[in-house]
């Protein structure tokens, strides 16, 4: 890779779309140094504010889409960005999903649907069989259900409060679905959910790839802030997508790091 490819590329906002009360998608035109693939992310800089990692939720050959949930200061401000404004983008970065022959089962919790909808589209374009299990706390937080259906994928939803689909966790749907076919599983969502997904898949002998989130200071593989111990894998470089089985020997589901690099137990209920 060349150093220029790690630079900040201007990204003009062409469209801002509210997907749900919690999530806004931004369509960005940017002269990226490489084409993004599903599961990769970009570092998005709001000039004057911080730079944060965001999964690529779509790519149409010229425009990049990111889908932003409000978590704190930068993500709130990003949701207010208007058409015509400029952001900065570094990327695409990291290792995405390895996509081969199906059938594929995609399991998304909350904003975890962002990288999965891109993977869903890519798989359907290749004619693969895809089923998507979408979960959220409540129906208004379900993400990309209609868009997933439009790709021709089979879609099932569930909400924790039962306001849409059957009440419960998306992992309940997974348990029921796994024995039915030799599914290859892709998952993204709260880390507690991902742990259950991986355990279930390992138990059933199914291949599973998960997309992880960690605090990222650089996104370029130089600072070490996103590392998984004890193996020394950088979520920004060797990840964010990992083979689920391999994660079981790491901090996955157990520890995260704060911005100074201090190791802390995974906070309960963290969205990613």
């Amino acid at each position, binding site marked *: 890779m060349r150093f220029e490819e*790690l630079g900040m590329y201007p990204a003009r906002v062409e469209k801002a779309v509210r997907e749900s009360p919690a999530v806004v998608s931004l369509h960005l035109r940017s002269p990226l140094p490489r084409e993004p693939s599903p599961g990769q992310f970009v*570092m998005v800089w709001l000039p004057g504010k*911080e730079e944060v990692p965001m999964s690529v939720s779509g790519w149409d050959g010229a425009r990049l889409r990111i889908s932003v949930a409000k978590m704190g200061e930068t993500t709130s401000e990003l949701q207010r960005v208007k058409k015509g404004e400029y952001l900065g983008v570094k990327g695409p970065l990291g290792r995405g999903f390895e996509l081969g022959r199906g059938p594929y089962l995609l399991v998304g919790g909350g904003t975890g649907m962002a990288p999965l909808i891109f993977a869903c589209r890519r798989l359907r374009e290749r004619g693969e069989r895809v089923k998507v299990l979408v979960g959220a706390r409540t129906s208004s937080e379900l993400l990309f259900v209609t868009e997933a259906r439009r790709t021709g994928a089979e879609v099932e939803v569930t909400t924790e409060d039962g306001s849409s689909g059957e009440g419960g966790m998306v992992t309940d749907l997974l348990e029921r679905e796994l024995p039915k076919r030799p599914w290859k599983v892709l998952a993204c969502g709260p880390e507690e959910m991902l742990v259950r997904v991986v355990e279930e898949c390992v138990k059933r002998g199914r291949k599973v790839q998960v997309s992880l989130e960690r605090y990222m200071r650089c996104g370029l593989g130089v600072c*070490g802030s996103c*590392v998984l111990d004890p193996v020394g894998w950088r979520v920004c470089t060797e990840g964010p997508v990992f083979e689920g089985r391999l994660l079981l020997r790491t901090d996955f589901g157990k520890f995260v790091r704060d911005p100074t690099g201090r190791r802390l137990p995974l906070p309960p209920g963290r969205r990613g």
Partner: protein
Amino acid sequence: MSRLTVKLGKLRLSNPTILASGLLSTGSLLCRALREGAGGVVTKSLTLERREGYSTPVVVGVKDGLVNAVGLTNPGGEEYLREELPLAKKGGGPVIVSVAGGKGEEFAEVASKAEEAGADAVELNLSCPHVRGHGLEIGRDPKLVREVVRRTKEVLSIPLFVKLGLSDRIVVSALSAEREGADGVVAINTLPAMVVDVYARRAILSNVTGGLSGPAIRPVALRCVYELYQNLSVPVIGCGGVEDWESAAEFILAGARAVQVGSAVATRGLRVFSEICKGLSNYLKREGIQNVDNLVGRLEG
């Protein structure tokens, strides 16, 4: 590859490539760098107190390099030495702890804790260009260098290296460090720099200014190493834009006994160390040179 073994004072390295300070930083990644072929690794610069550092963006790529202003982010010397150093040591090679500070006592205190915790050597960062009072201001003042090195040397029995940045006093500062017992000099750190985004009409780094690293600074770093080699008797360790065996060999010919590799980790990955070693080893064989030591400073003319 015994052709590649080098000695820096009392410190033996299996090869002359060392991971530079501030890159990778966390224990398990330093361990990986050692296992993937680095002859040694340097930790991020530790301070007595924990430091958040600057807000993002802290690093950005430019043509032939990176510009960074991380702000010496670290969880504090004690915590790092307790949590990360043991993981790094599992790599089996020498771990050099980098220490930063504002005052002589601070350097000495963190350095002695590092020795207690099992560090193989200490590197004093007297060259950070973007944290006021924590680097370059010390490194370009030979009196302050003398003071900091003397105090640290007093409490240390493991080797002590001093990392200096570009300044018109680099040779004088290095001589002061040598006189106070420094076991080697590392040169150079990043060069003061900044990056502007014309659409945002803003400096990209949150700290506005930062430091340039990578191949863009190599000719500058080479000249520093060359001048230091002419004037010092302790080993010089070259740093700045090493990315392949040719660039490593350039530094060695200019007088470096070992090289540090930083930014190239971003573009070449952790393989960079073993790739440099393989290339160097073949080069030595082709040239009929027994050990890399025999190449140090061997410029013709």
